[in-house]
């Protein structure tokens, strides 16, 4: 378990920033009184997986042999062999509160998303204004429960002209993966 080096940090933060925008700084904000942040949060790398956790817990975790340490805190994603960073499903709880582009789906669109399909225009109930094309987007249901995240297929302006069956968000991960990919999601 170690801190990320510079290139790794840059890769990962670029990725995260595409979902959260400038509010990414909230993730690593130092603890200050009067805010919700009470502890210093850090990113740690174990093999190729990145975890997001309070520093206190990271220090605890150092005393556990690496082979037997399975997770600590929340797993954010992993670095591929080519050096890219891939967000994991479990990062949803981290990025959802800070999401820049959001998309709310109607109740009839919930199940298709949970089965891993893309978001169609017909299912969209609400949509962030001025969302650019190909930017990260967090998908919510109408009770504001995050269901997954993906990448916008069109900008907001273009989307208005589309027919109802057109794809507006390419799904990357959804909470249904907790069932579908349970075996492979967290294996190291």
């Amino acid at each position: 378990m170690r801190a990320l080096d510079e290139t790794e940090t840059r890769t990962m933060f670029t990725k995260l920033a595409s979902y959260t925008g400038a509010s990414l700084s909230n993730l690593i904000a130092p603890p200050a009184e009067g805010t919700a942040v009470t502890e210093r949060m850090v990113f740690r790398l174990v093999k190729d997986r990145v975890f997001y956790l309070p520093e206190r817990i990271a220090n605890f975790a150092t005393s556990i042999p690496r082979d037997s340490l399975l997770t600590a805190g929340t797993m954010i994603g992993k670095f591929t062999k080519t050096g890219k960073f891939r967000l994991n499903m479990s990062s949803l709880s981290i990025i959802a509160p800070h999401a820049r582009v959001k998309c709310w789906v109607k109740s009839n669109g919930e199940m298709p998303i949970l089965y891993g399909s893309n978001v169609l225009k017909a299912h969209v109930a609400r949509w962030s204004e001025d969302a650019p094309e190909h930017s990260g987007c967090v998908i919510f249901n109408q009770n504001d429960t995050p269901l997954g995240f993906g990448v916008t297929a069109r900008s907001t302006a273009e989307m208005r002209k589309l027919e109802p069956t057109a794809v507006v968000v390419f799904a990357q991960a959804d909470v249904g993966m907790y069932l579908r990919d349970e075996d492979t999601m967290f294996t190291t």
Partner: protein
Amino acid sequence: MGVGRRMIKQGPPPPLDESKITMLKKRKAGEPEIAPKAKAAPAKKRRRSDADEQTTSKKAAPKKSKANGAPNGSAKADKKVVEKKVAEKKKPVPMSDSEDEDEEMEEMEDDEFGDLDGVSDGSLDSDEGVGRLSDLEDDDSVIDSDGDDHPRETMFSDDEDLSDAEEQLTAANIEGLSRKLDAEQQAEAEEAEQELQEAAMQTNIAGDRPDVFGQDGQPGLAPDLQLLRQRITDTIRILGDLKTLGQADKSRADYVDLVLNDICTYYGYTRYLAEKLWNLFTPMEAFAFFEANETPRPVVIRTNTLRTNRRSLAQALINRGVVLEPVGKWSKVGLQVFESAVPLGATPEYLAGHYILQAASSFLPVMALAPQPNERVLDMAAAPGGKTTYMSALMRNTGTVIANDASKPRAKGLIGNIHRLGCKNTIVTNMDARTAFPKAIGGFDRVLLDAPCTGTGVISKDAGVKTSKDERDFLAIPHMQRQLLLAAIDSVDHSSKTGGYIVYSTCSVTVEENEAVVQYVLRKRPNIKIVDTGLGDFGSPGFTSYMGKKFDAKMTMTRRYFPHRENVDGFYVCKLKKTGPTPVTQSSTTETSTKPGRARSSSKTESTDDESYDKTPILDEDGSAQDHEGGSFGPFAEDEDQERINRAERNRLRRKGLNPKGVLNKPKKSKDASASKGTEKPEEEKSEAKKPEAKKPEAAKKSSNEGKGEKKTVTKGEEKKEKKEKKEKKSAKK
């Protein structure tokens, strides 16, 4: 009520046919909603009308008393026919005689009722009153039986109709529902009791000593389950009152043997396990326990308070067509599910981590542990994570929860659940908890040990337990539990301001895995005591004695849960408080401080080893030896010393898993060569050398990590700087 009186007047009925009883039983089982009161009431009414008419059929009365469960509204002619048939079947005795008897009896009764009608209006009134009462009760029972279906349906449809009606799920509503269900349960219980009494009355007639031994079916044929069941109930009834019901030439052991064999055949237990479970209860209760193991426990979900609250979760699930209610007063987060139109393990709410499917019994150890925010808590056997996530939720995602499980495949589900439910303060490890704690991390405020067990409390979930567990398991598993509990105790920080607690729980009901284990650690660790679980009156107290074994008097503070009593899985919860440091280390440190010696130093090295409890006997001997050596400075008995040294050496080797015999000769040789001190010292050095060795690989790993990372990140300060730099860089890029 009426039945009893009638029976007294009527004298003994004709002997009962076996098949008739089983039919009756079946019918009763089929329609459990009809209360015996309801059955009795019409019978009484009819009786009165009979009396009025004075032209009753002669056999109606005996028939009624015989077959209580018979539908009451049928025409008299039918009754007659049926009755005749029954009578013919049952009584090969001369018909005329019996009819005469019946006639006489009927006349008597009629007379009596005539008297009742004519003479005393008051009595009639009272009778009517009773009738009314029973009518009322009858009505109640009707409501109750309806209550099973209708309220749910209405709730269901209502909620679909006005989905925004939140009043539907106000606390009052929930309360009302649960109250109704309580009432229902009570009624059911009463009913069952009455039925029992009735059954007792039916067969508990003077001179009736059922012969349960003579009913053996042909060997080799499949057993008749109906008969078998009948015989089990009979035998259990006899065991309840052996003096009056038992046969003279049979002992209690014979009856127990018979019923155990029957239970093995009927439920499919191994004889060993059946006997073990049988010995836990009274015969009546044991039967109830075996019965309860055949029915599934209610499905319970736990609200994840990190994501939602119970009311909004219930509302969301009701909208999906799930019928549920709060699980009971003892839990604020549990919801009991009666039926569901959707699979509960795949709803969007489940996937979003709003709840977890968790047996009601597994709430209890966490509630007993009561972890507080900002504590350091350990869950030694965590998978699949129900309890871990509950702890995390109780701590509101503060502090640290270390969730350990020895099995990697099971830990996968644990990790999934932890992430799904949004627990951010957990570390998941995959170690053998017996040796890893407190070696890797110690000093916990609270430790939960939900020990792996034989699973005799969850037979309804996993019927494989009935046959798969043998004597060996009941020796090996408690042994492991003892090791785990000792490790748990040693991992706790006794001086913790808020905690210092250990909760030991198993999903097993046997004494070997519960009270015996706790008693063992009480003996091994005098620095712990049993404290109240904080679960209130829910559950039954633990045993203080069992089959000749006496346990600590405070064992009543531990809690047992049984499927037939509390309708949860069989469970055991014990809360311990650590009051001081483990005395072995204490004594060894004091000893070393007072007087360093070879034997003591060896004991010290042992104490740094993972298992320290084995050396207490050695220590005692050392202590006695110390008196002689230190006090009188007498002549040293070399032989005796050598014997002790050898024994200590053997113990040490055995503890390390080496063969003591193989290495035993060596110290002798070396002893021959040099003094005993010479043999001990190298060992000391070895064991001391071990500690740095153990630390070294970690250091090596760290350094290798750093090497991989191409950048040395040693201190926190540097890390901080790095982060800041990166942030600045990033913002600059933007």
